[in-house]
């Protein structure tokens, strides 16, 4: 049995320690907001936070998480109130199919925690690992700028 701290709750999973955190979240804990896209750390769809740092959950084994706090897309909102970055995403009307966007949002939240007012180059650098095949990159940039403005006002 492996105990994880997920979105502020202590959760126990009966899993092979080599199982990627992605599948433990999705299949064992029912948190399906974190998406599979490549299984190889190439696309960013599975991005979650460990102690606030963005990681690819497809490459992070469940056995390696230890006491670090896991935050998934489901853990961003406070009940009915969405996280400012989620609100920015909503306001900027960013998603198309939306499948990659939980991962995009997790990367953006981590960026804005570190760099509240990112330049375009800083946005590009932080978001480069997250692929969107629908091509919503301009909307993602707009949402990040919107969230950044909100955080400074």
């Amino acid at each position, binding site marked *: 049995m492996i105990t994880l701290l997920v979105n502020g709750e202590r959760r126990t999973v009966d*899993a*092979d320690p080599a*199982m990627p955190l992605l*599948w*433990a979240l*999705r*299949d*064992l804990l*029912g948190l*399906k*907001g974190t*998406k*599979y*896209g*490549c*299984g*190889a750390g*190439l*696309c960013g*769809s599975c991005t979650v936070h460990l102690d606030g740092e963005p990681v690819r959950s497809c490459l992070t084994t469940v056995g390696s998480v230890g006491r670090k706090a896991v935050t*998934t*897309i*489901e853990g*961003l*909102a406070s009940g*009915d*109130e*969405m996280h400012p970055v*989620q*609100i920015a*995403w*909503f306001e900027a*009307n*960013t*998603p*198309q*199919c*939306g*499948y*990659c*966007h*939980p991962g995009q*949002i997790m990367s953006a939240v981590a960026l804005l925690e570190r760099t509240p007012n990112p330049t375009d180059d800083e*946005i*590009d650098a932080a*978001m*480069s690992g*997250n*692929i*969107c*095949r*629908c*091509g*919503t*990159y*301009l*909307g*993602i*940039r707009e949402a990040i700028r919107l969230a950044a403005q*909100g955080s400074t006002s």
Partner: protein
Amino acid sequence: MKVSRRSFVQTTGLAGSALILGVRSGRAAFPGVRGEAADAQFFEPNVFVAIGEDGVVQLTVHRTEMGQGGKTACCMLLSEELDVDLADVKVVQALADPKYGRQATSGSTTVRLNWVPLRQAGAAARQMLVEAAARRWSVLAADCRTESGAVLHGSDRLTYGELAAEAAELPVPARPPLKDPADFKLIGTPQRLLDTEDIVRGEATYGYDVELPDLLIASVERSPVPKGAVQSFDADAALAVRDVVDVVELEANSTGLTNAGVAVLATNTWAAMQGRAALGIEWEPGPLATETSSEWRGEFERVASLPGRVARAEGDFDAAEAAADRVIEATYHAPYAVHAMMEPPACTAQVEGDRCEVWSATQGPQWTVREVAGALGVPNENVKVHVTLVGGGFGRKSKPDYAVEAALLAQKTGRPVKVLWTREDEIRHGFYRAESYQVLRATLDAEGTPTGWFHRTVFPGIGWSFLNRRSPPSEGELTQGLTTMPYRFPNIRLEAAGVPSSVRVGWLRSVCNTFHAQAIQGFMDELAHEVGRDPFEFQMDMLGARRILEREDDPNSPYPFDTGRLRAVGEAAAEMAGWGRQMPERRGLGFAMHFSFFSYAAMVADVSVSDAGELTVHQVDVAIDCGPVVNPDAVEAQMQGAVAMGLSLAKYGKITLREGAVEQGNFNDYPVVRMEEMPRINLRIIQTGTVPTGIGEPGVPPTMPAVTNAIFAATGKRIHNLPLEGQDLG
């Protein structure tokens, strides 16, 4: 700021839609036919609109939402004529059912084909509600008006819910009058896609996310080459993996839709993948393990050197060639390409006796019904297909192969099964955009005036994938850019020929338009250069005076090719980009335009190429005419998405085969455009005429040639082969 939960549009998830639609079977066939078993509490004038006495207005969407905004557009069309606020309606996703008409979300058809029927569905309901109110008040219906889900007359007001029971007793008008477009309140206004809040909360349910009690996850190792067969495998090794429950061999189906494979079923995805990795399958490669891309190019060249089937001829090209002062020739090549949508194929199925229920991320629910029923040997009526939100489709998810796999595995195991494709599965077992090789020739007289145009296109037709034989390009595939060539050459010959393929060929966003536009728009740019003309002005000259190119197959089409509209988008894009301005060293503008899916798109790309050969696409100016626009935000999103996809195809899109097997497997060797590569995009929407046309696909074809023509302007290097990756631009 606070956006409260579910404050915008109530959408109903899978369980909800199953419940509602399961109870309410027996709705009327659309259009205008009274349902046989209308529920007393519900007013259901057709299959798309239902209003309860509780006032809930429920709209049923029969098309798939995969990011193009079709679901939202359908609701806008219904809501406009019904006169309800989009924020007040409840939206349910339809099951697969012929009563809805065509449900395939493909070919950029959702708005085009539903423009009239869905507005009529809304208008019929509205007319009946107005009539019910007029009777209640003993006034003329013509003196009543509607607004936000209520009928009004003077100071009297009745909500649709209050009128539902009475309206349900009235006859359904067959051809209700539609609003004057000048009175539209919703159509033409920017609207957020309906699932946006669920998506950003991480609560949207895609095919990958379906959950059922007792569910098994299946991961399938498929034959590396279509028509290969399993020789041997180690089931025990797979079963030894923790949480693996079963191992099932799958045979290829006779239509070529599914390939042979071995499925490992487990209680979680990781275990299924680990078990699959332990199978150690030995394959019989089969008859198609022949094609190796580097060598197969010769077969394309050989076929392209022979006469093809003439698809269109005007004047006498041979005579023009014999009399020509100069003949310009170029060949264009583009490899196979694959979809790489972010959500790989995923489907869940449950079989009980001779009944099957399917939850699929599909663009083709009705085809899914037929294929699943056929595979299980049950009647179509016994197969119930739910459509999930689709994490990108681009044509791949029109094919129901993964649903067949799920249904067969559910039947064999007796448990619900979710088949999850990995990224490698998606890249290696796709239905690919065809590889193509094209020869173009233009003849010039002594004054440099173009006298003839010859174009021979060679590619494996899509029919190959289904007809189980060598399939030449079809008429439909040739209308995708080849035969719609709009320029005024006095002598024209357009030919087509097929080559066999080791892989299945399918639809990838814009399909054959991508390579035909690349060749035609690239070659027009070359010709302009050869005759010393500005490429944009040369294109406009060759387009000539406005004319209508009628479709031979459908002379009464409401969507004729109007060259004046193509000119208008071309001129708009050129104006937006400041065409003709002086550009810095190694920076250039490239122009391209293309008619596809009955829409008109033109682009100017602004690129620079460093001395080291590094390409930067700074900006793309886009002009689009897709007729009247339902949701301008969706049009903008589709143009941005088309540029991103076209840029990915131009820079990286390459699938190669070794002895019939795909060599690529993930985003490391099948790269796609990332954020830092995304250019600025300026968009101008031109709305001509009264009928909307396609928007999901028409933006892709001009992207590649706009970029490669810009590379020529910047560097003098003419690009004849895609992708750009691996070519020296320095």
